[in-house]
């Protein structure tokens, strides 16, 4: 599906097609994204400047499944005329996914340097942590603690008021 981008300026106008950037995922899928949307990613912004005109930009750290969603996110956030409240609602729906997918989004947002997506997803994980006891957190995220019971008791005692 790879095609060379039309020789047009970045500014969109009815008669002139918008500039599209081609991306290739780690598993070989290709996606097209509008330049304005691509600029949400600092990584892509740098790559575009270096003139990868025509050839798809390879992204070995992101699978097709996740890249598709990232493209969707960036496109939505580059859309003009969306009010804050509906964007927030859209974002909430966007991250209403399995825990593992949220982590995939975080890694992709980190690699592609998309501050809005990184911020959104980090807050989702913070919300998962909030309100849980240490034990619940360990179970939820499958974290193995190698504190001995005495060590753990000591850590609790250090800040006992926080457990009240």
């Amino acid at each position, binding site marked *: 599906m790879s095609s060379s981008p039309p020789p047009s300026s970045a500014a969109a106008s009815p008669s002139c097609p918008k500039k599209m950037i081609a991306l290739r995922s*780690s*598993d070989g899928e290709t996606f097209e994204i509008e330049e304005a949307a691509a600029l949400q990613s600092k990584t892509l912004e740098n790559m575009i400047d270096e003139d990868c005109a025509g050839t798809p930009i390879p992204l*070995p*750290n*992101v*699978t097709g*499944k*996740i890249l598709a969603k990232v493209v969707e996110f960036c496109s939505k956030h580059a859309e003009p005329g969306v009010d804050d409240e509906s964007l927030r609602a859209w974002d909430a729906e966007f991250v209403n996914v*399995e*825990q*593992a997918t*949220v*982590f*995939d989004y*975080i*890694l*992709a947002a*980190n690699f592609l340097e998309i501050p809005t997506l*990184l911020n959104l997803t*980090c*807050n989702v*994980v*913070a919300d998962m*942590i*909030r309100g849980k*006891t*240490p034990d619940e*957190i*360990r*179970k*939820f*995220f*499958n*974290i*193995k*603690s*190698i*504190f001995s019971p005495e060590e*753990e008791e000591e*850590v*609790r005692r*250090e*800040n006992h*008021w*926080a*457990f009240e």
Partner: protein
Amino acid sequence: MAVQDDGGGCGGGEPPSGGALDAESLRIPLGPTEKQPRRTREEEATGENAGLTELPTEIISNILSLLPVKTLLRIRSVSKGWRSIIDHRSFADLVLAQSLGCSDVTSLISIVGNIEPTHFGCRFFSLDHQTGFAVPLGQLDQTINSTRLDWQSVNGLICFDVGDLTYLCNISTREVRALPPAGPDLPVHLHRVMHSFSALGFDPVTRRYKVMKTWVSNALNRMAGVITANKILTLGTNSWRKIDSGPIDFPCGGSVCINGSIHFLTLDLMSNKVIVAFDVETEKFRTLALPDGALNQLHKTKLIEFGGCLTVLDYEHLEEENTISMYVLEDYKNRVWMERPIVLPRSWKEDLSRSERFLVGSVRAEEILLAPRVTAGEVYFLSYDVEKKTLKKVQVHGLPLSLLRSPVIIACAPIEYVHSILALSEV
């Protein structure tokens, strides 16, 4: 008097991204874990996936820095990896940056009154300005002696003296730490009765906290010679160092740390009002002249930070004329003050009419706060928004009922504090 010993972090010396962590934590993966089979909701709830532990350390740090200090202290016990992140010095900077970037305002208020039927004393609360809800800071009640009416907090830390000892307190973690005792070290023939005061400063470039302590002799005739001595302690070290002399009198009207210098109002040798600035990095004193309009009297003047600038509040005429003169040092380098007169709507007096005296202060959100000194049945503050020129009453709720049954004294104007997880042993 009981002072809680250092309960702060341990082992924060190693960077979390080094190999020092145990196996269960933070390796950097090559890519998303697409190879794992699709998870069911049930598996997810029981944590069959290992997603979180595969995230890079900086990301986990960023996520954790979004959480409140109380939560962070609790989740230190989740794993050694998390404890290592939370205790690390650079993590404290992340938390501070989050708190400074947040528009929610929290302040520390202190109230003297009856908590139980027989227990009259000073109690501290943290006040959320959005909701008006006060949370008791019980752990601090025994240790902070609120004789001063004008503290400030520096990045969420406050410094206070009890007798000859200097204490530091992190309001968010409730940690209180006594600094090593110090004396003015004067030659025997110069011994006098000396009183001391301490001030905390922060240098944003080196990110170091220092406490500056001044001793001033009790000379009746100032011109006959005032003896002063100054010492400084860099937090993280355990010893006081003697430095060149500075101000010759006690501060009157609070201290404010701005632009890496501690500023306070005091009197010079000729009994003129002056602002003394102590540069935290160079450890030198200098003076700043007050703006012309603010020279007249000392007692109803206060230094605050307003909109990021050093500001003098002069409320001498507040009661008769409903005015506060505000001088903002907008151009620090060239010492250019901007005068911003404030005229309060007359209604402010109706709310404070039952109180003979009141306290003036400011918190981060560019408001001026008025606090009734004595109040009965309810605790509240008046908050004046300087930009919008509006006055509103902030009712404080969540206070123990026994406190409100008799009149209470507001011990000091609210001081704004940001949330800090800095362990005082480690600065």
